C-alpha cells in the first residue's frame, strides 16, 4: 500500500489487478490458503486475474484443475473440512451450475446437518455478469440463485475497493463464501484509497449520499447508478446510491435506514427481474417501511432472456443509465 503524499497523483489500479493483489495478500498471509480452478496457473487465468501467481507461489498453492466443476468444488469443500482455506475459482457463473449440488447440498448444508460439527470455510470466486458479448452460455447475472441459499454468504464486487478487500475478509469466515466478480468491470480503473485496508462483509455501503431517492443496487449496477445519480443531480434530484455488496445475508438495516430518509427507492440490477434481489428488497421495504414510502418502490432489472450475442441486443437486455433515470423520475413524480 502506498501513502498519498498530497503532491503526487496516486496511481490508478484496475479491478483485475485489485483482485490479484487480494489473492496475493491472502496467499502470503495464510499458508492454509491455496487457489484452484481451471487454468488459474499455467494459462494465467481465463480472465488473467491470477496471472503470474503460479510463478510466485508454485503449483501447490496455485493448482490447475481439469474440467470437473463438481469434482474440484467438492474437493475444495473437503479440503476446507480438513482445515485448509481453499479459494476455488469457477471460470464463469454459467459453469457453477455444474457444481451447484456441491455448493448447496454440501457446502451450505453440512454445518447445520452435522449439528454444528463440520464447518466449510471455502471461498468460491466466479466470473459473473453480462457485457462482453459472450452470449447465453457465458454471461449471466445469476446472483439470485446463490442469494436464495441458506448457509451461504454471497458477496458482489461492485467497486475497486471491494475487489481489493472482500477476499481477505471472506477468508476470515468459517463458512462458505461465494464471491461474484464482474468480467465487464475487470478493465475498469481508479484510485484505490490506501488507507482503507479492509472492508466489512456484513454491511451494505452508501456509495453516494443523497436525500431525494435511494438507488439500491450491487455489482455492475453500482457504476451505472453512480452515473445516473450524476445526471440526476444536474436536474436537481439528489439520489443516494446504496451498494448492497452482501447479497446474503442482506443488510436490511441499511436499506431501511436509507429509505426512511428518502421515502423513495428504485432497485437496479442486471439479473432477471422475476425473483431477483430487487424483489426481495422491495418486499422488505413493503414489510417494514410501507407507511414511509412516498411512492412505490420500482425495479430496473434485466430482461428475462438468455443473453444474446450481438452488442445491441446485449445492451438492451440489461439496465442502462437512461432507464434508471426514467424510473427515478417516475418515483419522484
Amino acid at each position: 500500500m502506498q501513502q498519498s503524499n498530497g503532491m503526487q497523483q496516486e496511481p490508478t489500479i484496475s479491478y483485475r489487478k485489485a483482485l490479484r493483489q487480494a489473492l496475493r495478500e491472502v496467499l502470503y498471509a495464510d499458508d492454509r490458503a491455496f487457489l484452484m480452478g481451471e487454468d488459474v496457473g499455467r494459462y494465467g487465468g481465463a480472465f488473467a486475474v491470477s496471472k503470474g501467481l503460479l510463478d510466485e507461489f508454485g503449483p501447490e498453492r496455485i493448482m490447475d484443475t481439469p474440467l470437473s466443476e463438481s469434482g474440484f468444488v467438492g474437493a475444495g469443500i473437503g479440503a476446507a473440512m480438513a482445515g485448509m482455506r481453499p479459494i476455488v475459482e469457477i471460470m464463469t457463473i454459467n459453469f457453477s451450475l455444474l457444481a451447484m449440488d456441491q455448493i448447496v447440498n454440501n457446502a451450505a448444508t453440512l454445518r447445520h446437518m452435522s449439528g454444528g460439527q463440520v464447518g466449510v470455510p471455502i471461498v468460491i470466486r466466479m466470473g459473473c455478469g453480462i457485457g462482453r458479448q459472450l452470449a447465453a452460455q457465458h454471461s449471466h447475472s445469476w446472483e439470485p440463485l446463490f442469494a436464495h441459499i441458506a448457509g451461504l454468504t454471497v458477496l458482489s464486487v461492485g467497486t475497486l475497493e471491494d475487489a481489493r478487500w472482500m477476499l481477505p475478509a471472506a477468508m476470515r469466515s468459517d463458512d462458505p463464501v461465494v464471491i461474484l466478480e464482474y468480467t465487464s468491470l475487470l478493465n475498469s480503473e481508479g484510485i484505490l484509497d490506501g488507507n482503507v485496508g479492509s472492508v466489512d462483509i456484513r454491511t451494505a455501503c452508501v456509495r453516494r449520499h443523497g436525500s431525494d431517492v435511494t438507488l439500491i443496487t450491487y455489482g455492475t449496477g453500482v457504476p451505472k447508478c453512480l452515473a445516473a445519480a450524476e445526471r440526476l443531480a444536474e436536474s436537481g434530484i439528489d439520489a443516494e446510491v446504496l451498494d448492497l455488496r452482501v447479497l446474503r445475508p442482506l443488510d436490511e438495516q441499511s436499506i431501511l435506514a436509507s429509505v426512511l430518509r428518502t421515502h423513495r427507492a428504485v432497485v437496479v440490477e442486471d439479473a432477471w427481474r422475476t425473483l431477483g434481489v430487487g424483489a426481495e428488497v422491495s418486499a422488505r421495504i413493503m414489510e417494514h417501511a410501507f407507511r414511509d414510502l412516498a411512492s412505490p418502490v420500482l425495479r430496473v432489472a434485466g430482461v428475462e432472456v438468455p443473453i444474446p450475442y450481438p452488442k445491441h441486443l446485449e445492451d438492451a437486455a440489461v439496465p442502462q443509465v437512461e432507464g434508471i433515470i426514467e424510473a427515478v423520475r417516475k418515483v419522484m413524480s
Partner: protein
Amino acid sequence: MVDRFIMDAATAKGLLHQMLRIRRFEDASAEQYSRGNIRGFLHLYSGEEAIAAGVMQALRHDDIILSSYREHGHALARGIAPSVIMAEMFGMADGCCRGRGGSMHLFDVATNFYGGTAIVASHLPMAVGMALAIRKRDEHRIVCCFFGDGAAAEGTFAESLNLAALWSVPVLFVCENNQYAMGTALQYSHAEKDIAQKGRAYGIESVHVDGMDLLAVIDAMRHAEAVVRTARKPMLLVCNTYRFRAHSMFDAELYRSKDEVVQWKRRDPIDVFTTWATGCGLLTEDAVAQIETTVANEITEAVTMASQGDLEPVEDLERHIYATE
C-alpha cells in the same frame, strides 16, 4: 490369501463382535422404524458387515472416513456408540448431530467420521479434498470413502477418481457393490459391469474382493495399506456383496427374487466367519454365545437411552447455520 495364522482369538472375537453389533443394531433399527420412533428414510447394512469390519480394522484413529446414507455399519465399526447413533435416529439432542441429521447423516468429528451423505456420490470429491489437505500437510493418515455400485454411474465418481489420481492423494475408495442401486440391478446401471475397470481408466489401481468373506477383505486391506498409506496413492477396492434387506423401508422389493436373496444369505458373512473361526479353534461356541449376549445388551441399552433422550429446543432451529450462531 490372508495369513490366517496371524489372527488370534481376541481379534477374532473383536471382529465377530463388530459384525454382530451391526447386524443386531440394524434389526433393532427396523423394529424402531415400524414403531414410529425412527422416521424418514432408513437404509440398513445387513449382509455387508464384513466390509465395514474388515476395512475399519486396518484404519488408524486419525484416518478419516466418509460414507453414504447406508452408513450405520461404518459408523458402528468406527466406534461411534450405538446409543449415540440410535439417539440420532430418534431425532434426539444427544444424537451425534443433535438429531438434525438422522439415519442418513451421521457425523462424528471426534472419530473422524464425516458423514453420512445422501446425495449419491457427492462425498467422493469431498474425500479427495480431505486427502488433498492431508497430502499438502504431509500427514501420514489416509481417507477412506465408502459408496455403492450405483454411485459409480454418477459423473462425480469419474471426476473424483481422476482428481485423486492426478493429485496422487491418499484416499481409499471402497465400492460396496451389493448388485443393486435401489431397484436397479448392476447391468442396468453399468454397460461395463466391471467397476474396477473404470478405476483403471482414471489411473487408479483397482482390485476386486469378495465382500462376504471377512478374511478376504482383511487381506485386501493389507495391500491397500501398502498402496494408500505407504506409497501415498489412491486406490479403488470393489467389494462384491449383497444387502439382505430392502433398499429402504419404502421398498416393496419387486425387482429381485426371493430365491436370489436366499442364495446370497447362504453366504452370510457372519456365518461364514463364525464357521471358519470356530472350525480352526479361534472361537468356541460359548464365546459366540457370550458375544451374542453382550451385543443384545448393547442394543437394548442403546434403544433405551435413545428413547429417554431430550429433543433439541425449537428455539435452536436456526443455530448452526453459520459458525457464529
